[in-house]
């Protein structure tokens, strides 16, 4: 999995690309978040548009990241969740935890 980082109106947008499935992905994602928090960023939007699929280990990575950001006083929200990825959130009941958006403008405004 690759992570592309950009910033917009005080919100850091992390564009994930590939498959979210554990292994080195966990350290990559967590290290990215810890660096952002250390730099003072608190609002994180994770764009899943280019994520082919997520397995249960990948869900764990997102949960860990969510907890890390929330503990720092910020929030982690999702953008462009495909139907396939959405289904795994539904089965896991994690759609009740993660706030997701399909429109980037709306997602960025939600942090205001």
């Amino acid at each position, binding site marked *: 999995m690759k992570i592309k980082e950009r910033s917009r109106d005080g919100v850091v947008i992390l564009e994930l690309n590939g498959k979210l499935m554990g292994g080195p992905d966990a350290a990559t994602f967590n290290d990215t978040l810890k660096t952002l928090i250390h730099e003072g960023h608190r609002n994180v939007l994770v764009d899943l548009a280019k994520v082919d699929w997520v*397995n249960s280990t990948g869900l764990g990575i997102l949960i860990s990241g969510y907890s890390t950001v929330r503990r720092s006083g910020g929030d982690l929200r999702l953008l462009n969740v495909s139907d396939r990825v959405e289904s795994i959130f539904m089965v*896991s009941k994690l759609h009740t935890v993660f706030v997701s958006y399909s429109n980037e403008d709306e997602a960025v405004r939600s942090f205001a």
Partner: protein
Amino acid sequence: MSHVNEPSQLVEVMLPSRLLFLGVPDAILMELAGDLPYEQKDIDELSTAVIEACTNAMEHGNGMEQGRRVELHFLFSPDEIRVTVLDQGPGFDFNNWQPPDGLMRERGRGITIMREFTDELTYDHAPDGRFRVQLVKRRPRQD
């Protein structure tokens, strides 16, 4: 690829125990099930379940030892797609398995996902002693 009126067709694959290869069963199902009378949602669900089974086989069954292989059988039949996943681990007591508590737990969702995304899910040991998971998605009824 086979049409529904053709006999069953079997595809067999051996994977090293590396997460890198989890995309292989997904690619096979996406490529070969495309012509079969399933909704994309059904294929996505089966593929997600098979990825979970392979993740468990690599991590818990084979202990991520690359020399230990995960064997996959994809049986495409007129009425169902049956995927068998075999690993070289001891297996576990599936009948008495209970999902861990806690919505925010970071592990322990794989079996729930497999159950929800398949029409039939069975665990047992193959005659040669390997741990075996079978995942079935049935053809939608044509009413």
